[in-house]
C-alpha cells in the first residue's frame, strides 16, 4: 500500500484495508521494513510524515533525480512565507492582525499564497469585531518540512534561553 501511494498513509488506514491487523501491528511491520531497507542499503526508505508514513528516496539520490528532468521544480518558500508559517505553527489558531503585528509588515498576500499551497487553513473565527479568520497549519505543512508533529519544532523556551545566554 505504501508503495502504491503518492501521499503519506496512516497506520490506522492501512490496518483498516487489511482487515485483521491492528494499527499497532502495522507500526511494527513498518519498523521491521525500515530496518530491512536500512540493512539492505536500499535507495528508498519509509519515512514518518505527519501522522502517516511514506516511501521516499534517500537523500543521496536527489542529484540523480534532479538531473533526470530538465524542469527544475523548486518549491522553496520565501522568507516572508517561512516567518509567517513559524508564527502560525507556534501561535495557532492565530489571526492576520497578530501576525502583522509580530512581523511588522502586511500579511494578507503571504497568507493567501500559503493557503493556496495548502500549508495553512482557516481553523475558525475569533471573537470580537468582524470575527476575524484564524489560521492553523495543515498536514501538508508537516510533510513539506519533514515533521512528524508540531512537537518536532524546537520549543520556544530553548531558543529564548539561547538568546539570553548570547548576551
Amino acid at each position, binding site marked *: 500500500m505504501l508503495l502504491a501511494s503518492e501521499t503519506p498513509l496512516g497506520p490506522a488506514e492501512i490496518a483498516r484495508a487489511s482487515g485483521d491487523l491492528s494499527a499497532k501491528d502495522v507500526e511494527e511491520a513498518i519498523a521491521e521494513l525500515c530496518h530491512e531497507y536500512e540493512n539492505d542499503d536500499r535507495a528508498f526508505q519509509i519515512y514518518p510524515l505527519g501522522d502517516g508514513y511514506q516511501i521516499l528516496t534517500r537523500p543521496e539520490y536527489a542529484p540523480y*533525480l534532479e538531473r533526470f528532468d530538465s524542469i527544475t521544480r523548486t518549491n522553496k518558500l520565501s522568507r516572508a512565507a517561512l516567518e509567517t508559517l*513559524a508564527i502560525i505553527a507556534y501561535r495557532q489558531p492565530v489571526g492576520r492582525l497578530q501576525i502583522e503585528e509580530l512581523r511588522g509588515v502586511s500579511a494578507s498576500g503571504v497568507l493567501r499564497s500559503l493557503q493556496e499551497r495548502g500549508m495553512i487553513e482557516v481553523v475558525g473565527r475569533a471573537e470580537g469585531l468582524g470575527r476575524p479568520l484564524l489560521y492553523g497549519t495543515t498536514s501538508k505543512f508537516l510533510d513539506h518540512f519533514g515533521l512528524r508533529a508540531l512537537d518536532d519544532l524546537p520549543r520556544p523556551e530553548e531558543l529564548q534561553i539561547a538568546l539570553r545566554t548570547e548576551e
Partner: protein
Amino acid sequence: MRLPAPTSSRIAGDDDRFVVELERFQGPLDLLLHLIRSQDIDIFDIPIAEITEQFVKAIEGIDEHVSLERAGEFIEMAATLVRIKAQMLLPRRDDLLDDQDPRSELVRRLLEYEFFREMAYTLAGAEADRALHRPKGYIEPRLQPDMGELPLQLTLEDFVKAAVSLPAPPERKPHRAPVRPVTVDEKIDLWFRVLKEKTRVPFEWFMRRWRTRIHAVMSFLAALELAKRGRVRLRQDRHFGTLWIYRGEADKDS
C-alpha cells in the same frame, strides 16, 4: 518618494557604514534587528538616538520602486523610534519602574520577532533536508501515446456487429470545404492556454487535432515566436524525436 529627514544635514554626511539594501529586509523589525545585532548592541539598552539616526538613513533610499504600503511600514517604525527618543529626553522621575522604560515595548517586539526569524531559518533547513527525499510520482508520468497507435483488440464478431449498426453512408456529394485561414497569433493564444494547464506539451499533441499542413506550420511558427520572446522553452533530445514545449520561467506561477 523622499522622506523628510528630521536631521538631514548630519545624516546626509559621508558616514555610509550602515548603508543597507532595503530589499534584503522583511520589514522594519528585521532592519532594526539587523542594525542592533550587527553592531553587538545590548538589546536591553538600545542607544535610541544612534539607532534612530541609522534607521532613518537606511530608509532614505525608499523610492518609487517600493510600494506605498511597504514604505509606510518603515516610516511608521521611524516615527515610533523618534517618539521613544523624545520620551527618553524628557526628565525621568526616580520612582519609575523598570518596565516603564519607553523602549521596553519595542524590545519586547524585537525579541519576539527575533524568535520567529530564527524559527524561519530552522524551517528553511528542514525544508531543504526534506526536499532531498522524493516521493513516488516525482517524475511526472509520460504522456499517453495516441489511442490510434494502439493495435486493435476486437473479435471478428464485434467488428461485424459494429459494422452492421453503422448507418448507411450518405450519398456522396462533391463539396468544397471552406478554407478557414489560421494565423500565428491564434496558435500563440492556444499555446498559452495549454501551457497554463501543463508544464510541458509534446508538439505532436497539437498535430493530432488538426492534421492539415497549414496548422502544423502555424503551430510551429507560434512555438518559435514564443521561444524567441522567452515565453516558452523548446527541447528535442534527438533528431526527429519528440519536440517538447516547456512553459517559460516567467509564467511558472501564473
